[in-house]
């Protein structure tokens, strides 16, 4: 039987040299939901995602994915296990074409027919990418690059997709579009772990949210509840 929780983080501690960036957080990601981490700069959101993806090592704590311990496993192993990260700053391959970028996402997959289907699916989510298929990644606009980064992550057919500030630096119209797509991806069966500074947008599509402050979780609750919370309103929503 599959675990109900796809990802469990238990008492995670991450240090950058002597800086204690993440100070023992506990996060549970139930299968098929959208979970959001919000918080100000330096709260440890990106560090948490990087640690799950294997880009930085934790000092203490456990990360359990599908019942398996993936703590401090290298990134390529984590990717194979079924976790994809849309990294901060997009990190697309600028001198590869859109098509090649997408195929890099499916690099470890062998099922050619399914890859083709997924490519079509990704193009149905972001029709604009199809128009740009043979263009170099570096020549896309910021919004298109974000779409490419999300699509590339989806091409590995992950069970869990983690996104680091997908709305950062996008025009307001595009922000809504990105959040719509995240909902759509989720409704088609992929669990989403979202990190955002845009708290309103993120919380309104989330099932559950955690508020981080200087490496600790200070508040947690269902998305709508956090949206109504006075503290959250004051600190993050500017209302």
């Amino acid at each position: 039987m599959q675990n109900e929780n796809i990802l469990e983080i238990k008492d995670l501690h991450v240090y950058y040299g002597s800086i204690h960036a993440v100070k023992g957080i506990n996060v549970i990601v139930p299968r098929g939901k959208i979970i959001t981490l919000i918080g100000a700069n330096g709260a440890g959101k990106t560090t948490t995602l990087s640690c799950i993806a294997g880009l930085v090592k934790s000092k203490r704590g456990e990360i359990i994915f599908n019942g398996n311990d993936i703590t401090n496993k290298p990134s390529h192993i984590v990717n194979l296990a079924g976790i994809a990260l849309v990294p901060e700053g997009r990190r697309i391959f600028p001198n590869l074409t859109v098509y090649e970028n997408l195929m890099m996402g499916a690099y470890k997959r062998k099922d050619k027919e399914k890859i083709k289907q997924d490519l079509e699916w990704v193009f149905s989510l972001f029709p604009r990418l199809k128009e740009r298929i043979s263009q170099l990644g570096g020549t896309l606009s910021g919004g298109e690059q974000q779409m490419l980064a999300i699509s590339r992550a989806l091409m590995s057919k992950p069970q869990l997709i983690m996104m680091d500030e997908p709305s950062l630096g996008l025009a307001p119209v595009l922000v809504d579009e990105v959040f719509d797509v995240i909902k759509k991806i989720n409704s088609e069966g992929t669990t989403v772990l979202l990190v955002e500074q845009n708290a309103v947008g993120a919380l309104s599509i989330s099932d559950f949210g955690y508020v981080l402050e200087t490496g600790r979780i200070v508040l947690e609750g269902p998305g709508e509840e956090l949206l109504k919370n006075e503290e959250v309103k004051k600190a993050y929503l500017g209302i």
Partner: protein
Amino acid sequence: MEKLSNKTKTMLTIFIIVFFAFLLFLASRYLDSYRLRIINLMAIYAIMAVSLNLINGITGILSLGHAGFILIGAYTSALLTLTPSQKVSSFIIEPVNPIIQNLHTNFFVATILGGLMAAFFAFLIGWPVLKLSGDYLAIASLGFAEVIRILALNAQSITNGALGLKGIPEYTNIWWAWGWLLVTIVFIVSLVKSSYGRALLAIREDRIAAELMGINVFKHELISFIIGAFFAGISGALYAHWLTTIEPKITTLGPILTFYILIMVVLGGLGSISGSVVGGITFALLMEWLRNLEDPFTIFGLNFPNGIKGLRLLVISTIFILTMIFWNRGIFGRNELTWDSIYRFFKRFKKKRGGK
């Protein structure tokens, strides 16, 4: 986008290879031995450049240890083609190691073994070196190449130390040199075109993103490093049987050679295989042609009865600097000379003329 069918492209490729072979045949029949030596050197330099390009340009590992692999290939193959009696008579200071003394094979096997030996050393060196990145990797690889050279200088009973190996048969002819260049190009082009090669490009573009795509970056880098070193070893074997005398000197098989190759690669365009070939050929030609400057010559009424020693390198450097100013990504940039690009070029050319 204009494209040619794959069948046409294959036909054209076969045609051009046959055409080149015919040109080389003519050259081997009618050119004097001095010119033939230059033609052979062009191919050797091109192999060196293409193999370094795989490591530096395509995978993006800034390795400065290429001369070390060339040295290993050169010594391995030379020790295998020298006859036992030649070895006994040239090892004066310390007698040759008896195992090495009796090893003897033909040129082809010696070349392959030279490449394999270089690849083996790349495997050993790659483990520690590829854990580093950027400048640190460059310095470490440069250091390893020097270690290899110093070893060659001191392992008296194996390499004959500073005396070097002399009387190596001049086996490298036009067919071996250009044949190996063809093999190198075909192998590395098909590698780059495969999904494996695309992963190497992705690593160059963004290591972290590549790792996130499930690519085992270290393993890919190591394999690229080993393949590059293999062809460096092959070029070393050809080089040894072209020079006929090899010594572990800084200029012939030391860091200076690495920097020469780096110049060829950057001149042609870092990351472009066609660029490396053109870079290697151009470099060999320039180095020979500019020898004129070191012979007696007269310029603007000034007579230099002995020429100016070293002026050649000065001029090469100037050409290099000017190239970098006007084409800062090299002659080809990251582009390749493909049938499609040639076709598009002519198409545009025709349109322009038609427009007039």
